């Protein structure tokens, strides 16, 4: 981090899989249903019910593993993780212990300075989610009881565990965003953080820069957005550095992140750490992963963000950073590709500029998601054509773009309707230039005194008078002519 300290972070990311049904039973995996309507003897843990693995969940974890460059275990086994909590009807979670389905992978992140870094994935395992605890009554603190909805109990989860390779909140943010992109591209998960389909635990320690040993780590639970995670890391690193610089010792603890207050609070010390008593799950024999299945899943992988980044850099000369911004969402890539297809490859950089600057700015301002891109590739291609053939200026183009956001009209129609065609007609522009020179003796004197930027100022005035429609090159040429005429006359 700063001041001679280094932050060391490893993440455990839980992601709900986009299956139709739960992992061990045929109940629907569905968000927002009436409480306790997607439940059955298996997910309620009624006596005698037995789990059966969902084929699609198996395919999706393998897909995640391959997309994250992992090795795939050929005979994987399941274990029970035992603990008591009212949202867990079985009293244990079925998960994986020594033989997870995926291991030894990595994710490549691209930093703002253009450098890239590899964050290693230690393992990915399959497990089931627990139910949801709701608080009874309006006042959470006053409530004496909790309500349990088991619709989520048994929803398939994968847990992705990284090596402690992350060194800052920025890197953690880039990692989580990249992971999110990959899981969405592949359809492994919808990754809707607001619906809790991606949740994150953070292992964090600090050490003096250059130290070989890791410091004592704390685990932060309950983090459910990229912004919260970055804030939690900054806070926790500072907390630990404060303890050490004050002569104290960081205790190994489990802490809970409270984003509303911007602090982490103690949940458990090392002494009362949970003892989960893992043992092989007697209800589920090991699962054999056939070569054929791995091949089939591999063949179904779409073009992944890293391949998109390389393609946009290689084919169109975009910078790694720009390419990685477009690659964050599959929808952005499709939009870029279609616009380039329509406008021509030589316009690719212009397409990227419009997409990254104007389009993303507007989408940000209005809170639009990637599935709500408000301008079509066809509209942008039409706009670029008008700029290219000199019909409109770059400045006018930005206004037209804004207008396209609010209508389905193409650029040519908007330009025609609003009378925004570029004025290249030299006679009328010359008249304006001469009048402006005559009306502004002060700046003219500065010009005579050798201040050449005055010409730009006059050009700006011409643009103003024509509401931005003047061709800037022509306007500049005519302004200089008018200034020279005026000076010669004196």
């Amino acid at each position, binding site marked *: 981090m700063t001041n001679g300290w280094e932050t060391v972070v490893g993440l455990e990311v839980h992601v709900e899989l986009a299956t139709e049904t739960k992992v061990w039973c045929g109940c629907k995996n569905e968000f927002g249903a*009436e409480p306790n309507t997607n439940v059955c003897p298996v997910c309620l843990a009624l006596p005698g019910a037995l789990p059966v693995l969902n084929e699609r969940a198996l395919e999706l974890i393998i897909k995640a593993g391959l997309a994250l460059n992992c090795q795939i275990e050929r005979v994987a086994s399941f274990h029970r993780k035992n603990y008591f909590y009212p949202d867990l009807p079985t009293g244990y979670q079925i998960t994986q212990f020594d033989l997870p389905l995926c291991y030894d992978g990595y994710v490549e992140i691209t930093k703002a300075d253009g450098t890239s870094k590899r964050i290693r994935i230690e393992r990915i395992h399959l497990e089931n989610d627990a139910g949801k605890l709701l608080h009874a009554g309006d006042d959470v603190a006053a409530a004496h009881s909790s309500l349990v*909805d088991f619709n989520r109990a048994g929803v398939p989860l994968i847990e992705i565990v990284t090596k402690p390779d992350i060194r800052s909140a920025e890197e953690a943010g880039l990692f989580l965003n990249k992971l999110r992109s990959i899981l969405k591209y592949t359809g492994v998960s919808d990754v809707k953080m607001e619906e809790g389909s991606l949740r994150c635990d953070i292992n964090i320690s600090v050490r003096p820069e250059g130290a070989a040993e890791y410091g004592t780590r704390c685990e932060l639970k309950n983090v459910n957005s990229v912004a919260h995670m970055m804030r939690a890391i900054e806070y926790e690193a500072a907390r630990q550095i404060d303890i050490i610089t004050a002569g104290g010792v960081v205790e190994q603890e489990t802490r809970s992140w409270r984003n509303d207050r911007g602090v982490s609070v103690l949940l458990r010390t090392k002494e009362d750490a949970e003892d989960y008593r893992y043992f092989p799950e007697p209800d589920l024999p090991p699962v054999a992963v056939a070569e054929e299945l791995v091949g089939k899943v591999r063949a179904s992988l779409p073009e992944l963000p890293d391949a998109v980044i390389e393609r946009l850099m290689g084919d169109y000369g975009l910078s790694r950073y720009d390419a990685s911004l477009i690659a964050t969402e599959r929808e952005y890539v499709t939009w870029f590709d279609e616009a380039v297809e329509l406008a021509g490859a030589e316009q690719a950089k212009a397409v990227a500029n419009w997409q990254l600057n104007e389009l993303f700015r507007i989408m940000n301002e209005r809170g639009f998601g990637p599935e709500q891109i408000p301008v079509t590739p066809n509209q942008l291609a039409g706009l670029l054509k008008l700029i290219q053939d000199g019909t409109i200026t770059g400045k006018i183009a930005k206004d037209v773009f804004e207008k396209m956001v609010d209508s389905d009209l193409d650029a040519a129609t908007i330009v025609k309707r609003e009378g925004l065609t570029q004025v290249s007609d030299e006679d009328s522009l010359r008249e304006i230039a001469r009048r402006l020179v005559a009306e502004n003796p002060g700046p003219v004197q500065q010009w005579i005194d050798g201040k050449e930027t005055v010409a730009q100022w006059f050009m700006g005035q011409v643009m103003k008078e024509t509401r931005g429609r003047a061709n800037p090159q022509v306007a500049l040429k005519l302004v200089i002519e008018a200034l020279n005429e005026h000076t010669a006359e004196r």
Partner: protein
Amino acid sequence: MPTGRSEPQTLQVVIHMALTVDDIRQIARLARLELSAEEERLFTDQLNQLIEQVEEMGQVDTEGVPPMYHPLATQHIREDKPRASMPQEKALDQAPDVEAGCFRVPKITEG
């Protein structure tokens, strides 16, 4: 949290010490069981007897024998097709306390 992928663990029943009453208390705590002092002594003896019996297996030479996770080699998997769930009334039928379609339980404070 398990770390990494580890080599399959061979069954090792090597108990160097018999269980103490403190061990029994810890096991009872984890299982949320309340035991009387008499029960603690009784179960300590009984569990130690069980462990002795199981320890006999440690005499078998298992060098090079891969661990068995389950008597069945591999499992059946099912298609990702929804099946009818239980009606809510039936799901809540046996619950001691119910509110708003949910099971009602004593408040949990740990976050």
